């Protein structure tokens, strides 16, 4: 919840995991902010009619939540790159967890690499990615 310096970081360090708010109300708020007010994101019934198990979290919201993990851990972190792979749908109104871990450290550039994953309650990875982050 505060700023961090590169020297504070250790290879293999876990970022504190958080449970993202995947409630229908919050996903609808996000969808509205990004101009993606379609049933597959904001209406379980409409999503089911499209063959989905229920409303799903937009991919860009999952990615934004992964980025949020980094800033929640180090508020002063600058994400230079975040690369996200959407492996399976993230279902609205279901519990998920986001976690991250430091997997590379460039001492010269004060850059670190972080593995990021978003898992459902069954422990299945739905979204994964990596972030390149610079710290002072």
């Amino acid at each position, binding site marked *: *919840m505060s700023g961090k310096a590169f020297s504070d970081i250790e290879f293999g360090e876990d970022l504190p995991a*958080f449970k*993202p*708010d995947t409630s229908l109300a*919050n*996903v609808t*708020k*996000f969808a*509205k*902010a*990004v*101009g*993606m007010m379609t049933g597959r994101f904001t209406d379980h019934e409409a999503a089911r009619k499209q063959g989905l198990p229920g409303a799903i979290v937009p*991919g*860009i*919201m999952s*990615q*934004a*939540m992964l*980025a*949020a*993990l980094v*800033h*929640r851990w180090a*508020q002063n972190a*600058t*994400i*230079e*790159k*975040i*690369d*996200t*792979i*959407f492996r399976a749908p993230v279902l609205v109104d279901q519990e998920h967890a*986001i976690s991250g871990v430091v997997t590379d450290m460039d001492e010269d550039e004060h850059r670190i690499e972080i593995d990021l994953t978003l898992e459902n309650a069954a422990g299945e990875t739905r979204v994964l*990615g990596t972030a390149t982050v610079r710290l002072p």
Partner: protein
Amino acid sequence: MEIDELKRDWLDQDFDEMEFEAKAEEIVDFATASGETAPRFVDPSHPDFQAPPTFVTRFHGRRLLPEEFPKLGLPLDAGKAVIQKRPIRAGSRLLGRSHLHDIYEKTGRSGRMVFLVSRMELYEDGQLASIVDSRMVIREKPTG
């Protein structure tokens, strides 16, 4: 359609250009809904108020693919990469230019798939501010 043919005909040609504006209210809603807590992303009165790095993914061009691109099937969102070159501030006006950056094929859980990487470069005052790579996957239509 052969991948080499698609690459030859469609890679690295701008197919869309559009202007966008980053609005403070949308930045705050985007940030708070995605779980950001850092004041520089959620408090418009913060002296360093800016959009979270992936905010630029909310900018959509007029089209996902070049107008005449072969209709291989329905493109699905397989992933996104964002490279941030400089912060996007409230009120920033951005020019987004899109081109197809990569095309490749592989097999996955959904069968044979064609991957298209559409790259949007966002410029502010002529300076590159962000790059968004949208990886789309098209499942091959069954034959026979």
